[in-house]
Every structure is written in C-alpha cells, then in structure tokens.
C-alpha cells in the first residue's frame, strides 16, 4: 500500500508565559499507510495531540510548527498557506474531538451540523448530503438513523453524540481521520459500542486513522500500529501485537506494567463479622434540589444505600457516571446532608451535616477529591495548605508544625523544599500527593478517596495506589475508594460494591469479581472493561437484552 502520511523530523515550538520558546515536539517522524490506523499513545504532555493536530497543519495558540515536514498525500501541511489548508481540512483530513458534547452547537439540529462540511466545501447538494449522512448513521449503528438528524445534541446520549461527531468527520469522505481520545469521557459499557462502530466504518471505507489515546487497552482494539511517545519524542514504534507482547523500550514496559491488574492482599486479618464496623452507613436516601411533597428531593441520587467498612479494610465503590457513587462520599463526609439514613462512625452516630459534627469526628474522617488542581487553593503555598489542618485540629507550636509538614511531605514522597511553592508549580501527580498529605495531616482513620486517580496518567496513578497501600501499612488507615475504573479498585480494595442508578446492586470480594458477580449489570460492567488483547473487542459477546436494560447508549 502507498504511504498516505509521511512525517519527517517534525518540530513544534511553544511559547511559555515568560516568553521563552520551548520545543515540545522534538524531531518526530513516522508514516501512515493508506487504510491503516496508527495510535499515538503517551501520558499527558507527551505531545500526542500536538502531533495529531499538525496533520491538519494546525498548531494550538502559542505553538508553531518550527521544523520538519508533514506530508499528507504528497502535500506538506506544515508549509501550505492557511487558505489551502482550509480546503484540505474536512475533505482530506478530518478530526473527531474528545468531547463531542462540546463540539456540537446546542442551538442547531444534528443534521445541520453533520452536513456543514459539505456546505462549506460545496461538495454536494444538500439532499445528497443528507442521504449520505443517513447512510453514515446506519453504518455507525445509530438508532433511528432516518430521524436522529432532526434532534438537537442534548436529545441524544453521550455515546451517540460521539458517533455522530464521527459521522460529521466522515461526510467529506476524508482519507485520514484523527481521533483525539474519543472514548475517554465515556463509560465502559458505552465505549464498546462506539469503538465497534468506529472500527467497522474505518475498515469498510479503508480510511486511514490516527488514534490518540492514553489507554493501551482501547488502542489495542482499533490500531494496526502503535507509536509510543514521551516528552515529545518517539520511544517506540511497532505493530500492536509487537508492542503488547514484546515491547523493547523500557518506557513501553512501564506503561504495560501499570496496566497489569494487581490483586490486593489486605494487611488486615480476615475475621468473621464479629468485629464492630468502623463505618456503618444504613439506608441512605439523598439527592439534589428542593424536597417534594413525597419527602424526596427533586433528583434522587441515592435510593436507600447501606455500606459497612471494618477497620483496616478497604471498600471499593464502582459504577458508571451518574450512579451516585460520589454523592455517597459527599453524604458520608457531611457535605450533602441525606434526607434519611444513619451514619455510624466508630460506634457513634454522626450528625447529617458537617457543621453539626464535632471537630474530633471531622478529624478522623477525611475526603480527597478527583481534581487535584481545584482541591488546592491556588493562592496559598503548600506549607500553608498543609499547616491549616494541623492548626485547626491541634494547636502545635510553629516549630512543631514545620517539622510535621516536612514529615507529611516525606510520607507522600515529596521533597521538603516543595512547601514554599504554590499548587500551580506542581505536576498533577504531585498535587494529588499534597491532597493526600493534607488528609493525613488530620491523622484520620478513614480517607474517602473520590476518583483520586481518574485524572492522572496510568503510571502516575499506579504510583499513587502504591503510596496508598504503603500509608495503610504504616498508619493503619481504611479507605473508601470510589472509582469508575475496575482495575484501580481491584488493586486496593478487599470488598467492592457495584452501584447502578443510585442503588447498591451487589457487594463482591475483589479477589473473585468475575466469578462472584450474580447481578446481570455487574456481569455486563465487568465484561465491558477492555483487555490488553487485540482480539478482545471482536471476540466480545454480550447479551443484547442486558445492554438494552442497563447501558445508556
């Protein structure tokens, strides 16, 4: 097959706030054959999206292509005039963004937006374009392909919208499609359908693709070849099989290792139910909005959920977006008072609202959030952020406090010098460590971890999980670990609760998840997690009945 894309010694420069120029892509070069899907994989900041965008001759504001060439069907996208590039975009190369919800205009119908490219480039009459769009909707196995175009973006689900954005990209009959993490924001059960649809249209049309992702398991399902990136440089290029089975570069091995599910061995002795529960939550009903006449809030997020956590054990809570798992954490922490239900912590009933809880009770129950950057006050130094809980719960002298701050930073493996910095000067993983250190400063018994690794890169997340385990061994903590990612929860919890639509569906031992699952939704959820195996998606058999019942596709 002929080469469709040739990237030679590509360099991209970015301008920092202080006006300095930094090279963020350093001499990258690879080819894409016609009809081939190449995946760009790497952690955030590795330059994967930047490279993908250069295929359209585009560099984000503040960046510029400073060297090398990007040949698309013989034309150098890096040196063409903006006007010529605009002609090529949409007709020869198309882009599918990460968030379809943000890519659609909420004020126009879907059909208008899908056929917009044909109008801009004057490709075909409107009627033909609409017919072609319906064909694409069919090919992408969208429901009601004839009428879905008449709806507005908010009237379809996230998975459907993502497939519609693919239709938008494919309508101009491009030779190359750029997928920029198109399934990252989707739930696993939805992701499968989207991946299947993408794969089948790309294969039938033999369209070449660039698939940008940080998720090796997803990439393994769709890509023919994988380019592993780090720090703007190529670490390794190989066929998907080769990268997965015999990676040659140490960084690739690290990525693969971080993906290996590590089963958790609890440090606490498994005892009979005799031990009193450290945290016992019974029949919690909670939600948002004003209370209705029937005594329930407008939007009920939790319908009578009970959980029980023993000292030294870890409880995982898993479920897809909107299942109420974060609401449960907020209820336990007293941020969202429940409508009814009891929270008993260490033998004592806790007040529903954190404002009425005693300081000592608050101290022993800490919460850590998903987004490390919004959880740290940007105007304060790390030392001040860690010092506050120390001063609030105890009253140490200034010297004791300084010593304790350094000790806390040491516990989370950060250098003491970091205490003079502000949150903006830290990386994502470092910020999450500071968040943990702030929770530890209160010397808690339980830490509620709300998706704390979800916003982090695989390797960094694995390091945080290791840190959590180490802290548990040293300090005798218990965690309530909330996540949508099965392998993360499995890596740290003894017991796992599966939640669906505000209800606790099942409680399972983490060692025997697949075998122990009785409830059909748990089975569907567990079988939908992509595996590091190129044939997994094609060989996947799921019960259509189940999918209709539970997956919000």
């Amino acid at each position, binding site marked *: 097959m002929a080469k469709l894309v040739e990237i030679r010694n590509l360099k991209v420069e970015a301008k920092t706030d202080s006006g300095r120029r930094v090279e963020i892509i350093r001499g990258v070069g690879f080819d894409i054959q016609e009809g081939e899907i190449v995946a760009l994989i790497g952690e955030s900041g590795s330059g994967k999206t930047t490279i993908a965008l250069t295929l359209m001759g585009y560099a984000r504001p503040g960046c510029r292509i400073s060297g090398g060439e990007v040949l698309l069907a013989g034309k150098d996208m890096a040196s063409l005039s903006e006007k010529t590039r605009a002609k090529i975009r949409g007709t020869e190369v198309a882009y599918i963004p990460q968030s379809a919800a943000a890519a659609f205009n909420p004020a126009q119908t879907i059909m208008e937006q899908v056929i917009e490219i044909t109008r801009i480039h004057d490709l075909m009459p409107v009627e033909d374009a609409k017919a072609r769009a319906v064909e694409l909707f069919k090919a992408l196995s969208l429901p009601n392909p004839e009428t879905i175009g008449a709806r507005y973006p908010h009237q379809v689900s996230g998975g459907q919208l993502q497939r519609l954005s693919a239709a938008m990209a494919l309508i101009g009959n491009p030779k190359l499609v750029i997928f920029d993490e198109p399934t990252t924001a989707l739930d696993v059960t939805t992701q499968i359908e989207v991946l299947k649809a993408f794969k089948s249209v790309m294969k039938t049309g033999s369209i070449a693709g660039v698939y940008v992702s940080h998720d090796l398991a997803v990439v393994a399902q769709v890509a023919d070849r994988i380019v592993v990136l780090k720090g703007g440089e190529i670490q390794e290029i190989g066929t998907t099989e080769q990268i997965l089975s015999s990676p040659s570069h140490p960084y690739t091995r690290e990525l693969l290792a971080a993906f290996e599910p590590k089963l958790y061995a609890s440090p606490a002795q498994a005892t009979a139910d005799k031990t009193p529960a450290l945290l016992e939550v019974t029949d919690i009903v909670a939600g948002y909005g004003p209370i209705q006449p029937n005594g329930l809030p407008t939007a009920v997020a939790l319908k009578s959920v009970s959980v029980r956590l023993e000292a030294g054990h870890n409880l995982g809570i898993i479920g897809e977006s909107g299942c109420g798992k974060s609401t449960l954490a907020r209820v336990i922490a007293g941020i969202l008072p429940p409508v009814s239900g009891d929270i008993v912590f260490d033998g004592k009933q806790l007040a529903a609202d954190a404002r009425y809880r005693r300081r000592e009770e*608050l101290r022993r129950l800490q919460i850590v*959030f998903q987004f490390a950057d919004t*959880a740290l*006050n940007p105007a*304060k130094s790390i030392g001040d952020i860690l010092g506050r809980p120390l001063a*609030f719960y105890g009253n140490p002298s200034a010297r004791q406090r300084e010593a304790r701050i350094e000790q806390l930073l040491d516990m989370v493996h950060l250098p003491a010098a970091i205490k003079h910095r502000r949150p903006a000067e830290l*990386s994502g993983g470092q910020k999450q460590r500071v968040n943990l250190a702030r929770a530890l400063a209160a010397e808690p018994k339980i830490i509620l971890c709300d998706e704390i690794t979800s916003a982090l890169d695989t390797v960094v997340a694995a390091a945080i999980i290791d840190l959590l385990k180490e802290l548990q061994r040293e300090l005798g903590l218990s965690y309530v670990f909330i996540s949508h990612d099965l392998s993360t929860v499995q890596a740290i919890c003894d017991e796992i609760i599966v939640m669906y639509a505000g209800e606790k569906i099942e409680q399972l031992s983490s060692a025997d998840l697949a075998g122990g699952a009785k409830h059909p939704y748990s089975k569907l959820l567990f079988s939908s997690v992509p595996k590091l195996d190129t044939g997994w998606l094609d060989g996947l058999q799921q019960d259509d009945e189940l999918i209709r019942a539970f997956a919000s596709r």
Partner: protein
Amino acid sequence: MALTAFTPRKLGFRFNIVGMLGFAVILLWALVAIFAPLIIPYSIGDIVDFDYFGPISAKFWLGTDYLGRDILSRILMGARYTVGISLAAVCVSCVSGVALGMIAAVIGGWFDSVLSRFLDALNSIPSKLFGLVVVAGVGSSIPVLILTLAVIYTPGAYRFARALSVNINTMDFITVARARGEGTLYLIRSEILPNILAPVMADLGLRFVFIVLLLSGLSFLGLGVQPPNADWGALVRENIGGLPFGAPAVIFPSIAIASLTISVNLLIDNLPQKIRDRSN
C-alpha cells in the same frame, strides 16, 4: 517522580509604558493632594488680580477665576477634595461591598437572596437623584458626601465580588475546608479573598473613576463641596461663565478631572501581567 527545578519567584512588577504613564499621573495628583498647602503660590480665598477670568501669565500660571483668584492654587487645593473624598468613598464602598458579597456567596440561601434583592433595589435609584435628595435632606458636608457616594457604589462592588466568590465557592478546596469544619470567617478571609483580590483591585480603580465623575457632577450642580472651598467639579461650575471667553479658569479644572480619570483607566487596562494572572 522528576521534580521541576525550583524557580525563585521574581519580585517587582513590570509595567508597560502606558501603564507607567497612568501611574505617574495618579502619583502626581496624590502628592499634590497631600502637599497642596505647601506648594500653592497664593491663598485660595485671596482675590489677587483685579481682572476676572485673567489669562495665563507669569504671575498666574493658569490664569484667574471669576473673582480674580489664582486658578492654579485652587486646582491644587481642589485635588484634596476630589482625590480625598473619592478615595474615602471608594474604600468604604469596596470594603463593605466585597465583604457582603463574599458573605452572601459563602452563606447562600435566603440570606443571599434577601441581601441581593435589597442591594438591587438600592442600585435601581439613579445616582445623581439619590445624591440630590440626600444633600437636600441633610445638607452638604464632607462626611455626608463620602457616605452618599459610598452607598451609591456599594451594590456594584457587592455584585462584582459576589459573582467572583460564587465561582470560587464551588471549588473543591472550599468543600475540603467545609468538610474540615471551618467557619464562615475563615472561608472568606483565607480561601476566597486571596483568589478574588486581583479583579477586585482592578474594579476598585474603575469604581474610583466613577466616583470622581459623580462627585464632580454633584459639585457642578452645587451639591458637592461648598464655597469658598472647591473641588474640581465646583471649579468648573464657578467659572462656567468664562467659557465664551475661552478663559483658562474653566478649561484647566476640566483637564484635571480628565487627566485623573483617564490615567486610572490606563493603569487598570495595563496592569502588570503578574497581577492580572492571579485572577485566573
């Protein structure tokens, strides 16, 4: 995990040239306001020239007014009233507005609704009319002027600060502080205020300009500073009769008002990047 090299924070701000110019003019007027009694060539009440609406001369640099008093001296002393009253009023209105705005954002609920509607109602009264009524009712004195101007501009400062605080209030670090059991005062002082300070300072500057203009307007209507003292607005009014003669007595007080307000705007628009960045 690799650590990025420690970069010492640079001290001092880099202004661009326009910002510098604005700052210099403001500084000049501030110094004039402070040292006016020491630098005026003539006492402000003295009739020093037999000619009224006198021209610019070596003796009277900016001419004389309708009674033959030295305009330069009167402008320099007028700076005290214009800058001083405006500064006091802007400080009172911003401190009270920002404090109330933050409290409303943090407490929320009915407290927020009641306070917001009350201040909206206050905001709906035309500012000149309000000043007119107050001054007609209780008479014009400097404390009355300061308080009236402060009351007129508090709702604006409140709205601005509340909007910013509501955004900060939804951040996770506030939730963490609430879950820790922190009180309202701590949330306001330590978590919210540092994060809204930069835009609030910029707003303070703009509000200062509005107050200077309103004060000048009130004085022009005869409701502001009372004779024989005069702020710049009053100087324009006193000498308005000189306008047909092109008398410098009416031109220069106007220029003084314009120079101060334009300079404040230029400074705000060209604040150093470092101050502006903190609001992001």
